[in-house]
């Protein structure tokens, strides 16, 4: 099964061969490296930019204005912050021009902790991104979703921010992407560039016959059904929650678990129906906790579903600190880990109504 990195790579290949993607670019995106996480290896429309994030977002915006389809990469979201006003401009292009122009671009960037990336390779961007209206924001946590969300992002006529949980980049999927060979080795041999520099210089990817698979933007994934409590997350914490929920189900506690997948416009209808039914909800993400996107979901829960709640709603998020320390003893307490999540999930169902 493909990893998320391989899945995105295959989606980009599908994009450049079937969806008129003209440019895939960013720092180290083109050969010889093919991306810091190998996401852009073997592509024909990929190229290396100067190390200039503002230039990258500006270039993408101009390509969008020229009617091209492009995918730009910011190598780590920690380096996207000096582009905020350019992201705002991309997001307000249609609105400010009263619908005259649109901005059909994709910006992808790895987010979050989990690789001991220290202060500048561990940041989250979901709450920041949600504060830039005019963008659609997606974040997959499985390979099949990574593929399907990328295809949807490419064909969307609006700017789409595609956040990649970097801790999951090498995680293997459990579902085959349409056209993907069943054997890991076979896929690796086809689309992974050799490490040896000499071999890589002449290497060309041999792409499987991929097929289209669109995951609609705005639709959450109902990961598992249950009545005990609702748990909503996305990104790195998603497989951890699924694993805990599966284990606790064996002990008779059935959680209703959602992978949000789209941060904006998010699937409120699905969350609302679940929270109304269970009366108990936990939101989990790893961005810093003040002005956190989960806080917004808490607000809607309190304002709109208050009388359906049996117990207080909960948010488990990253600690409000300036960075994530590289030492495991620091990182582990800075962002939600399996033990923190399980504790919150258990307290949620055991709190007296």
């Amino acid at each position, binding site marked *: 099964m493909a990893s998320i990195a391989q899945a995105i790579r295959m989606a980009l290949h599908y994009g450049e061969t079937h969806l008129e993607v003209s440019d895939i670019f960013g720092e180290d995106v083109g050969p010889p490296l093919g991306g810091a996480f190998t996401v852009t290896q073997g592509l024909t429309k990929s190229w290396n930019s*100067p190390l200039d994030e503002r230039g990258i977002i500006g270039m993408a915006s*101009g390509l969008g204005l020229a009617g091209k389809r492009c995918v730009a990469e910011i190598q780590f979201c920690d380096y996207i912050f000096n582009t905020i006003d350019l992201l705002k401009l991309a997001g307000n292009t249609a609105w400010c021009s009263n619908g*005259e122009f649109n901005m059909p671009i994709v910006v992808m960037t790895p987010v979050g902790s989990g690789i001991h990336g220290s202060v500048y390779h561990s940041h989250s961007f979901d709450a920041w991104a949600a504060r830039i209206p005019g963008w659609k924001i997606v974040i997959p946590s499985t390979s099949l979703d990574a593929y399907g969300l990328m295809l949807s992002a490419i064909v969307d006529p*609006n700017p789409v921010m595609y956040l990649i949980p970097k801790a999951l980049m090498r995680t293997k999927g459990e579902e085959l992407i349409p056209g993907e060979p069943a054997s890991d080795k076979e896929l690796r041999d086809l689309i992974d560039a050799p490490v040896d520099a000499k071999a890589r210089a002449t290497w060309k990817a041999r792409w499987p016959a991929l097929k289209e698979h669109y995951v609609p933007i705005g639709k959450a994934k109902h990961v598992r059904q249950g009545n005990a409590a609702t748990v909503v997350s996305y990104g790195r914490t998603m497989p951890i929650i699924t694993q805990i929920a599966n284990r606790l189900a064996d002990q008779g506690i059935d959680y209703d678990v959602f992978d949000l997948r789209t941060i904006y*416009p998010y699937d409120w209808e699905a969350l609302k129906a679940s929270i109304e039914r269970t009366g108990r909800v936990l939101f989990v993400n790893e961005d810093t906790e003040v002005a956190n996107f989960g806080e917004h979901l808490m607000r809607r829960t309190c304002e709109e579903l208050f009388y359906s709640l049996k117990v207080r709603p909960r948010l488990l998020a990253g600690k409000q600190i300036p960075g994530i320390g590289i030492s495991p003893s620091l990182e582990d307490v800075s962002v939600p880990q399996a033990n923190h999540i399980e504790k919150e999930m258990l307290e949620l169902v055991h709190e007296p109504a």
Partner: protein
Amino acid sequence: MAAKQLTKEKLREIHSLMVEGRILEERLIKMNKAGEGYFWIGGPGEEAFAVPFGMLVHKGQGIQSDFLHLHYRASATVLAMGGNSIDAIRQMRSVSTDPYSGGRNFVNHYAIKRWNIVPVFSCIEPQYLQALGTAHAQREKGCKGITVVTGGDAGTAEGDFASALVWSSRPAGISPMLMIVTNNRFGISTPWDGQHGEKNVADRGKAFGIQTVIANGNDVFEAWDALETAMEYVRKERKPYLLELSVSRLYGHSSASGAPRWNEPDCIELFEEKLIKQKVMTKEECQAVHDKMLTKITEAYKQVQLEPFPDPTSIYDHVWSKEDGNNGRDTFAEQMGVDFTHNPPQAHH
């Protein structure tokens, strides 16, 4: 065609557009002072460059035509391309008929897709970065269109201008991009002298092997020749070019400084002196153009006063592309947003 070969008719047309642009801007300033618009920013004093620029553009839609990334002093350029002065008045009064932003943005913030005039914004430098993208698209084989980006001298300080020099000249991506810096020697209220170590902005292009020229933007003939040479170079060579034009700023930065008339060379007066000396027009004919344009702008102003302000419920329109349907309306945001039933909005200033 070199400027000295311009016909009398063409010179008269340039003069007429310059005067229309000036009287339009003066009307916009008056509107602001009368409380009929919240903010004024514009380009009175730049007409000698702005009008020839608009005339020399290969206008149209798509990469085979020129892309324009303008800043907010380009009113006369838009008129010279065929724009209507009434539309700037509409944007000033922020009425729903404002074709550039539907009453959403400051005056002189254009967006005209059919002529590749991409949305103008209030930030003074990111246009150089967006211009890299349209210029990159125009690297396509056989493409005839070029990208032109304009900004002021103070708008070269942030780094986006430097990025434009780096990206447009890099060997892997040499781009057909004309960068025009109009140097009025002020950044809002701050004079050039204390903020610029370089003698000329154009000198910065030389380090990147970019062709650079400095010209007098207050002189129609010199500006025409400089623009024509620059645009032909970029069109033919498919390389970047940096043109610095010295210009006047006749009413200050914006309404924030009260927009009083400044004592700087007036390019229209200078042009009229030449037209009269060359017997292209008489003094009386020049005055007749001023009178005619004053009447035209006044009539347009009166018409706009009768036009409606935007429907308050339209705030959610065009959040998304029209291709999403429903006028690009963000119905999701609308559902959790303003309650128009309990807080009825007022549709007036």
